[in-house]
């Protein structure tokens, strides 16, 4: 049997998704209108921490157009929100969709109003009279763990939600033998994800059937918990994630509204819609990052790294959302060693409850934090020993001949070749010519700096057994279903749930190559639990291709093999002699006597002449469980100029070389990198969620939170190396988060380098003009 040839895999096939999106005919959740639909408006606590004494809903219930009002005390039937990951010793708070006893962050929902129009619901929500007893609040995670801090969940008597230690190698020996030890406190600030589409939920009950439209990255999990929590048989719950306008982790949850809205629809017997307002979303949609690290690196004078000690406090917010501990533990701790041989590693992370919006995954989810940590420490070390930062990295890289490589943190890196990516990035950036550019800038009164970062990320989440060992309460597989219609056209359902990633295009490229078709012959469907396989895990963690794409590939191979078997039967030849090429099947050497693919498929449905034991029809369902994670890598280089008079940073050059293994669609790969790098620049230079000491979100709207604009980011110069992954048949790894992971430390390193002539060793993000101006002023004193 011949192997399929790659005609479309590896080429920049234009996206199949685009037509409906550029003509305004795509349907997002808020576009869904159902006859008889009413609108929900949540009543949210204005206090960060307050006991709920009493809720008077009488006036709201009397308001024009009001259909129902529900308080937390009346909403026990919604159950509690799930937590998917339980690290050892975790203190899991009960998380009710509507708080009944206490509000634990400003924005915690305490009641909901349903009315005939959105305006009526909003007006009536203002009439819900909640008597609060405000309590002292704690916002900062380190303060939350200090003696005497207000306790967010009184039943625990502490804000310490969990402790996650990891130790390997002889750390005392490492620090004992070190010529140099560098210590640094690093703050990874809180961010607001800002998917441009706000969250939205529509629920419709029809007899015993419940249909839910939701802006989610994980429709199957939403289906699962709607069924469990609301007591609806799972086969009567259909969840649809239609067009979803970006997620970045902020739609990777089973949210309160996804339980309350269908609960209301059941209760009142009418369809219900809720769409978040942006300012509401800033409070009620999960935030990202918010970790503080105390790090120490031990090394020899020649740059050999001996050990790393890290103590981290991670802010969890008021409750533990679905994946909250993951970003601070599994996807963080193990990947901190990055691209380097590290003999000894000692890390401990503590998660803290605070009176803030819950934290959960945000693009990169733990890996940008790890990369910032190790890459800042490498730069601090390079500065300390007077070594070129690129050279320091090169000396400590895991060498190309060491793969598969078992890290000090027990991960097995599948494949890698870090030096060529570094070399190529330095070349793209004209690293060797930088000194002259710095001198030239200096003559203009500008501070010019260059910074780089080499990262390794962990993708392909996840082998189910690894999930189980790590406390993740679900498998890490992905599903695919393929149906070849009697006339030879193809439909594929994927368990992944894209929201901008272009799976319809990429998956159709994979299928088309296997079956000798064009991508347009393959229809890819997603985000609807009705016809998809029984379970899809969803789209997050750069997992879709390396797990879901492989499921599609394997399902396609199954139908391909069956077609070849039937062709062998029809052509009276051995299976091994059948050639399947250009949409035709023939016996090797006899191309003139061929059968078209569609002709063989039709015979499978006609079923008049099938070999003994062959079932009619042509469909397959595959659940692919990956054998290992995948480990993309790369090096980014950034060059900045700073006007010391005002502190503003200009990125004058940005180069990146990323290796995500085999690329299915290079155009989409580059698009993912562009977006990821821009988000990283946002974190490095502009973005921060700011609370006051009472827990009020000061950066509470897009007016107060700086999402990068087109004028804030430069053109990125991208290069690639290709080191296939050996752990899957396509050799793919994942690219969704690489930009964010690689670029955040790169930009910070460049800015610190620019300020290094002033004696600046480190600055925490965001590196706003004000922060830099202050650093310049301080250095001048």
């Amino acid at each position, binding site marked *: 049997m011949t192997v399929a040839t790659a005609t479309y895999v590896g080429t920049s096939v234009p996206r199949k998704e*685009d037509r409906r999106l550029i003509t305004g005919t795509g349907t997002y959740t808020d*576009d869904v209108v159902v006859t008889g639909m009413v609108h929900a408006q949540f009543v949210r606590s204005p206090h960060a921490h307050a006991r709920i004494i009493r809720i008077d809903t009488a006036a709201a219930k009397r308001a024009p157009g009001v259909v129902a009002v529900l308080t937390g005390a009346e909403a026990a039937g919604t159950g509690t929100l799930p937590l998917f990951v339980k690290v050892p010793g975790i203190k899991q708070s009960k998380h009710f969709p509507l708080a009944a006893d206490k509000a634990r962050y400003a924005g915690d929902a305490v009641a909901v109003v349903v009315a005939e129009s959105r305006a009526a619901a909003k007006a009536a929500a203002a009439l819900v009279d909640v008597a609060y007893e405000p309590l002292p609040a704690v916002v900062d995670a380190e303060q939350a763990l200090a003696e005497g801090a207000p306790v967010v969940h009184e039943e625990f008597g502490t804000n310490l939600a969990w402790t996650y230690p990891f130790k390997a190698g002889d750390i005392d020996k490492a620090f004992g033998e070190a010529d140099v030890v560098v210590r640094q406190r690093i703050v990874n600030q809180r961010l607001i994800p800002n998917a441009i589409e706000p969250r939205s939920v529509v629920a419709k009950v029809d007899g015993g059937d419940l249909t839910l439209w939701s802006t989610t990255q994980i429709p199957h999990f939403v289906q699962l918990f709607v069924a469990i929590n609301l007591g609806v048989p799972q086969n009567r719950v259909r969840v649809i994630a239609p067009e*979803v306008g970006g997620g970045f982790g902020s739609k990777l949850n089973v949210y309160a509204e996804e339980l309350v809205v269908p609960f209301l629809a059941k209760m009142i017997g009418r369809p219900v819609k809720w769409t978040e307002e942006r300012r509401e979303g800033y409070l009620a949609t999960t935030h990202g990052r918010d970790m503080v690290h105390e790090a120490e690196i031990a090394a020899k004078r020649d740059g050999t790294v001996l050990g790393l000690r890290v103590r981290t406090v991670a802010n969890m917010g008021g409750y533990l959302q679905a994946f909250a501990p993951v970003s601070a533990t599994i996807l963080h701790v193990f990947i901190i060693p990055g691209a380097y041989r590290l003999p000894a590693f000692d890390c401990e992370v503590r998660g803290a409850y605070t009176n803030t919006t819950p934290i959960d995954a945000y693009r990169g989810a733990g890996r940008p934090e790890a990369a910032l940590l190790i890459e800042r420490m490498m730069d601090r070390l390079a500065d300390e020993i007077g070594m070129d930062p690129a050279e320091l990295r090169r000396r400590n890289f895991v060498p190309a001949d060491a793969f598969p490589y078992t890290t000090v943190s027990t991960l097995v890196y599948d494949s890698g070749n870090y030096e060529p990516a570094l070399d190529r990035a330095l070349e793209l950036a004209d690293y060797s010519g930088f000194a002259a550019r710095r001198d030239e800038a200096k003559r203009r009164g500008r501070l010019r700096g260059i910074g780089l970062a080499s990262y390794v990320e962990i993708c392909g989440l996840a082998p189910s057994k690894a999930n189980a060992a790590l406390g993740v309460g679900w498998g890490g597989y992905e599903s695919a279903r393929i149906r070849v219609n009697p006339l030879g056209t193809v439909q594929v359902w994927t368990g992944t749930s894209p929201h901008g990633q272009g799976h319809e295009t990429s998956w159709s490229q994979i299928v088309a190559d296997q079956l000798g078709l064009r991508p347009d012959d393959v229809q890819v469907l997603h985000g609807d639990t009705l016809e998809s396989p029984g379970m899809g895990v969803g789209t997050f963690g750069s997992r879709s291709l390396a797990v879901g794409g492989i499921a599609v590939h394997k399902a396609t191979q199954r139908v391909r093999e069956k077609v070849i078997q039937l062709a062998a039967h029809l052509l009276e030849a051995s299976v091994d002699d059948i050639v399947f090429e250009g949409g035709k099947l023939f016996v090797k050497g006899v191309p003139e006597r061929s059968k078209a693919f569609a002709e063989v498929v039709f015979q499978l449905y006609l079923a008049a002449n099938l070999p003994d034991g062959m079932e009619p029809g042509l469909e397959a369902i595959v659940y692919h469980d990956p054998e290992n994670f995948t480990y993309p890598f790369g090096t980014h280089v950034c060059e900045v100029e700073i006007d010391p008079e005002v502190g503003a940073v200009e990125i004058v050059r940005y180069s990146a070389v990323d290796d995500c293994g085999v690329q299915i669609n290079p155009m989409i790969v580059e698009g993912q990198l562009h977006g990821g790098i821009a988000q990283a620049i946002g974190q490095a230079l502009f973005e921060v969620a700011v609370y006051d000491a009472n827990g009020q979100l000061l950066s509470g709207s897009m007016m107060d939170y700086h999402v990068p604009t087109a004028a804030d980011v430069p053109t990125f110069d991208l290069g690639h190396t290709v080191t296939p992954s050996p752990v899957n048949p396509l050799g793919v790894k994942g690219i969704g988060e690489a930009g964010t992971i690689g670029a955040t430390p790169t930009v910070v390193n460049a800015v610190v380098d620019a300020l290094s002539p002033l004696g600046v060793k480190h600055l925490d993000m965001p590196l706003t003009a004000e922060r830099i101006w202050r650093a310049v002023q301080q250095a001048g004193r």
Partner: protein
Amino acid sequence: MERRISIAVNGDAQALEVEPSLLLVELLRETLRLTGTHVGCDTSQCGSCTVLLDGRAVKSCTVLAVQADGAQVTTIEGLAADGQLHPVQRAFHEQHGLQCGFCTPGLILTTVDFLAREPDPSEKEIRRAIKGNLCRCTGYQNIVRAIDAAATQARGGARQAEVRQ
């Protein structure tokens, strides 16, 4: 209370009774069911709701429906003519200038207005022109490339800057 307005949306003239507080975006999305115009914020930052009002790009979340009385409004649904994509739509597709697509209608309409006034923009001018439209997916690079490609094509494929030299 209600006010009578006449408005031509995508060439379709209509008379409507509207509340004075009704926003243009609500008229488009809810009354006329033209849901290609999106709402991404409530502070006029994101630009997802951008439409053309008498040819000029406006954020329809910041325009009252009554202010559009007597005006021509073009939404994303009205841009393609006779089943043929507008060159700006085509450029966004060809240059991979969109991912999730939520901000895309607003960006396309902003671009149509911008290129009508500035047919030969520099990269810097393009970036400045779309500052009022936030995109979280693309990092803007391919949007800028798409706008440049659309401009180049509209000029007959030549860079005027080069021609002038």
